[in-house]
């Protein structure tokens, strides 16, 4: 039974053209438009580029998949109490000017880390916490990362960073020293500090004019 062959019947040409048009539309909307809108976005004033060590630490963060449990995007206070937990203000696109690949994350098995450096600036804490999270946060389900450290009997060599673990977790007669990856990672984490304001204060004239203009409309 023919029911409008030529009008609605699917053939190869319609299929390919239709499929491509729809995909192009979606790509224009979700990829190209953001590209054009954001490509000239300057870094938010106050945001510092990563140092070389921090950039290395970011690679350690990526390599070990920290992003699968930690987001780096506090939500606006209207959506959740993130700011009240000390995770910081809602970020703007300019805060991520140096973040390629992006590490926004989709899970909070652990807390948001966008401002972990402001919240917990202690290098010793971070090193010990990476070595054994439960020594610092009881009940934590974060994996321990013994492979970022070296545990050996005797004393540390000069220049090495020795962990000062809580007594219950220390290993008598052995030292735990941080490998370079651990040091870089901690440097990156401490550098995660976006506590500067997202918006520049408006010039006086504009801020005075704004309410008047609104009232006029």
């Amino acid at each position, binding site marked *: 039974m023919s*029911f409008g062959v030529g009008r609605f019947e699917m053939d*190869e040409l319609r299929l390919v053209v239709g*499929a491509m048009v729809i*995909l192009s539309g979606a790509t224009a*909307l979700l990829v190209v438009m953001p590209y054009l809108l954001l490509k000239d976005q300057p870094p938010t004033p106050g945001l510092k580029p990563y140092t070389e060590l921090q950039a290395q630490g970011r690679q350690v963060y990526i390599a070990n998949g920290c992003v699968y449990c930690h987001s780096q995007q506090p939500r606006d206070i209207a*959506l959740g109490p993130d700011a009240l937990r000390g995770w910081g203000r809602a970020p703007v*696109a300019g805060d991520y000017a140096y973040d390629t690949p*992006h590490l926004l994350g989709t899970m909070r098995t652990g807390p948001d880390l966008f401002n972990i450096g402001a919240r917990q600036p202690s290098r010793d804490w971070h090193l010990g916490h990476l070595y054994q999270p439960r020594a610092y946060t009881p009940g934590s389900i*974060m994996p321990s990362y013994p492979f970022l450290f070296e545990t050996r009997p005797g004393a540390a060599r000069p220049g090495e960073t020795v962990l000062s673990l809580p007594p219950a977790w220390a290993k008598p007669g052995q030292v735990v020293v941080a490998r370079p990856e651990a040091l870089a990672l901690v440097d990156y984490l401490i550098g995660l500090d976006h506590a500067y304001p997202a918006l520049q204060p408006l010039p006086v004239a504009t801020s005075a004019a704004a309410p008047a203009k609104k009232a006029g409309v």
Partner: protein
Amino acid sequence: MDFTVSILLATFIISVLALFVFIASMAKGLFGSGGAAATQIFDADELGRVEDPAATQAQRGDLQRAMDENKPALAPAARDAEQIATRLRADQSSSLVVGVCLTLAVAWLVLASLAGLISSIKLHAPDWWVGFEWLTFGRIRPIHLNLVGYGWCSMAGIGVALWLIPRLLKTELVGARWALLGGALWTLGVATGTVAIATGHSDGLEWLEYPWQADIPMVIGGALVGFPMWLTLLQRKVEHLYVSVWYIAAGLLWFPILFLIANWPGLHFGVQQATMNWWFGHNVLGLWFTPLGLAASYYFIPKVIGKPIHSYNLSLLGFWSLAFFYSQVGGHHLIGGPVPSWLITISIVQSMMMVVPVFAVAINQHLTVLGNFRALLYSPTLRFIVLGAMLYTAASVQGSLEALRSVNAVTHFTHYTVAHAHLGLYGFFSMVMFGAIYFIMPRVMKWEWPFPWLISLHFWLVLVGFAIYFIGLSIGGWFQGLAMLDKDTPFMQSVALTLPYLQARSIGGGLMTLGHLVFAAHFFMMGWKFGPKRLGAALLAPPLPAVPLALARTPARSAA
């Protein structure tokens, strides 16, 4: 804000208008027909005759009787040696490449399941197996995801699609060697990419972890596996293209483009990369796995019960609305994030519009099976595929709801989302693939499944395992989200309360893995032609002509 509201309204109005124009144009004298295209997948002797190579002789008899009791009007034509020979040639033309793809798929499935189970256990036993870098949660979890997505699901989907193409176009598969080459490159890409993640060379984006060195063979391989389809389309012997062909063709076309754009080195940056990430992350589900899964369910459901799909027009509506709405929903992964709000708004609207294609498919497939649900008792293939089709509806409706801001505020950043992802890719896609593989492999190997009870064991293990997994993790994730939204609840509380649910997930995941081991063992037993020889009516096997077929069929039919 005004801009966002106008975007919201505009998107909504355009979407609804487009929909009405479409429905109206179909309704203009077109509803209720489309029989020719819908019956395209049947030869004259197949309509009204059940088919399930995975069923035992007894099950097939019961299946046929169950269908006959319900609708005895469809009297199938007598077996025709010529048509059988055509089908046999179609199957033979694809058997090598399909066999290779499905074998790889099953191997990836086993590895992926083990990686998933290890990840799951690590979440409640964080000091277990921490000495090896490659086994740390942050590596084994993306290994699991990529092996499932690009190993198991993609290979299974490609294998099933390549088997369907000659059947759907009633000719032989042309250029199977291109697909073999493509499959080999794809496998090389998956293996390279997995090793890259294990050794800490991930790109760092979810769904796009593989570095570009692994992406190149996958883009080329993905394009090559489509070649035989285009070549075979040029030789097609059918007048109408069946629904499954549209889905397969579009999927094979979409994937390499998506994957290429998403992985282009140095192109994406910062927040733009995040929108691109979820444009890809959702399209790989909506424009790659979903089309392949729907293609299979649109073929096998009617095929097994010997009855055409309910409405051809509804499937047409389902196809175009899926393509249009699904391709724009990715932004809902970034609700509350630092991305333009118009983008998120569009994605939320289109996520809600997704109920259109979902119900189009659901109604169509449900009405096809309606009144014949007893067939599920007798057909192992149908049991998996109908379950998968139902979970497709469930996953999609759940997904639409999760895109609402109020729901998303709770579920975002929680295990609830993980459970949802498994409802789609496991509950729907993997279940459909299991059913399809049970149907296809006897045709490929010319050998029946040696131990039918293993099929049942597989089914019940994964069904029970997945129920525990999904229900447990959804509840745990929801509570986790509520705890995070309460400013007076310490964050650690949201971690502690999930523990029992995470443990339940490991139990469920363990049962699923066990089910997969049973499936894989059975698969390889069949591959080595192990077990009692049961060559019979299930097979369109030589020797031709199909005398045994006709003989075996006749008593059952006359009894009915």
